[in-house]
């Protein structure tokens, strides 16, 4: 649990600066050219960016954006290209209030959604507990077991309608993240090639293929079933006092955590170390080309390095802006599912807390085990999007002109 919380916080921390700094991406470039005629070069840069954007095929991303309701809200009903242009121009931070508003709306909607469920389950289990306590003492234990069985059945049916919804939500979100990766990664690689980062491309191409096929497959085909298994075991384990399966559940939990941990560490370690090295090599080769002329003709160097480098500069601006816009799209996709899962998890914990003193101990322990399970679902989404964010951020950082 603590691990997941830490992960979540790191993820948020990484996501915010990545998106926010993209607003200032074009400032370093404009200062470089400030020594020469400022406005004409700005014009030339804008012209070059427009030309290049006209040639780039973004239709796949536009489709994904149109399909996702939350993402279009986060984009302020702009198309992907419009948002891209506005990020390149640096007006990004304007709509932060609308983003916050969207988040608050999601949170309150989620709480209101789960309120009836919490009330019903608490009522049923307290009723069951009261009957249990007030039943005539006929010397028969089995009446108590029957009451428990019935109450438990009702609680299970109520909770599982939501749990199934959460599972489909998670797997849909995973699929959507995958389709975003499949759309964004080729464009990022194209831009990286355009800037001249051939070493970076050779590092990131396999890393991206690994993430979008192998790792996503492990998450959908192994980790999601593991969640289902531990949920079913939690259900069965609290049916009776005789058969307890808590240790088997904790085995499944630690299996899950180890798989996630190993994938995470290995992937991020390799991608970041190789990526940073390759990015440095590419940056060096771009810079040597740039500074060669300056050392040869010191007076006119800055004038000459215009045309060709404006092309490269606009390509690298577009590359970074596509990364930032892609991350914004990701944020729009995962924000609502993750918030919903977190609220459901907290609601389960609250339920367990209310039921425990008054009602049935076994129902309380079932609900609290289920809330631990929900954190597995959250960690699936957070881990995949974290790896995606990190890879995109690395691509944005590497083979830059400056």
């Amino acid at each position, binding site marked *: 649990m603590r691990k997941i919380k830490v992960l979540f916080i790191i993820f948020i921390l990484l996501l915010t600066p990545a998106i926010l700094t993209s607003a200032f991406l074009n400032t370093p470039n404009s200062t470089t050219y400030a020594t020469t005629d400022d406005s004409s070069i700005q014009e030339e840069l804008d012209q070059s960016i427009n030309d290049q954007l006209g040639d780039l095929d973004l239709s796949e991303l536009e489709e994904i954006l149109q399909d996702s309701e939350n993402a279009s809200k986060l984009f302020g009903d702009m198309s992907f290209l419009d948002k891209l242009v506005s990020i390149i121009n640096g007006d990004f931070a304007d709509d932060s209030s609308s983003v916050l508003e969207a988040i608050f709306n999601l949170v309150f909607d989620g709480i209101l959604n789960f309120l009836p469920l919490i009330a019903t389950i608490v009522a049923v289990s307290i009723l069951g507990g009261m009957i249990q306590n007030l039943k005539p003492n006929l010397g028969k234990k089995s009446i108590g*077991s029957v009451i428990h069985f019935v109450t438990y059945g009702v609680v299970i049916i109520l909770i599982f309608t939501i749990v199934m919804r959460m599972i489909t939500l998670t797997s849909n979100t995973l699929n959507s993240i995958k389709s975003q990766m499949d759309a964004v990664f080729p464009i990022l690689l194209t831009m990286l090639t355009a800037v*001249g980062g051939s070493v970076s491309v050779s590092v990131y191409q396999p890393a991206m293929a690994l993430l979008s*096929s192998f790792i996503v497959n492990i998450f959908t085909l192994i980790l999601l079933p593991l969640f289902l298994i531990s949920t079913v075991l939690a259900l*069965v384990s609290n049916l009776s006092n005789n058969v307890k399966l808590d240790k088997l559940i904790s085995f499944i939990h630690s299996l899950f955590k180890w798989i996630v941990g190993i994938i995470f560490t290995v992937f991020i370690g390799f991608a970041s170390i190789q990526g940073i090295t390759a990015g440095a090599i590419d940056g060096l080769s771009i810079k040597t080309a740039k500074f060669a002329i300056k050392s040869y003709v010191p007076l006119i160097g800055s004038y*000459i390095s215009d045309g060709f480098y404006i*092309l490269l500069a606009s390509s690298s601006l577009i590359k970074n802006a596509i990364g930032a816009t892609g991350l914004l799209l990701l944020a729009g996709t995962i924000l609502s599912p993750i918030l919903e899962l977190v609220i459901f998890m907290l609601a389960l914990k609250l339920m367990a807390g209310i039921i425990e003193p008054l009602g049935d101990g076994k129902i309380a322990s079932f609900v609290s085990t289920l809330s631990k399970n929900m954190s597995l679902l959250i960690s699936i989404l957070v881990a995949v999007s974290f790896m995606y964010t990190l890879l995109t951020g690395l691509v944005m950082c590497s083979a830059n002109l400056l």
Partner: protein
Amino acid sequence: MFSSVSSWILSIAGIVIISVIVELILPEGSINKYIRSIFSFLVVFVIVAPLPALVGKKFDYSQIISQEEFTLQEDYLFQLNVYKTEALQEDLVNAINEAGYDNVQVNVSCNNYSTSFVIEAIYVELSNLVIMDKAEHTNIIDIEKEILKLIVSYANVEERKVHFER
């Protein structure tokens, strides 16, 4: 692989549910204790039963390991190579002009269909050469040397790729 896992989980769930129901139905008595222990044994058996089969079994990983290749947007890269060639030509003419030699034609030739921008050859046409006042050299061989040095350092190409025509 996945169906066997789900059948394993279902059988665990099934045996536990059966044991609970049996416990409900059975009357209180000394026999109850034995039946409970029998069911505990059964649960352990169901959990352990599929494990020996795992030893030495070959799994089918093909579903998980599916290789994917990302294709670059070659139309865009082609167009960008064209832009780059034009920009480089213009820059070189400007640079040579700045060094004092007017009316020099520079033709950059590169493979636009490759994904990366690699210069194959640079042709410099000196037939209409106009030597301005600020030029350092007037001798055509010295001029060629200077222009060659300029082009090599600017476009980052090898000397043998630069060809002169007088």
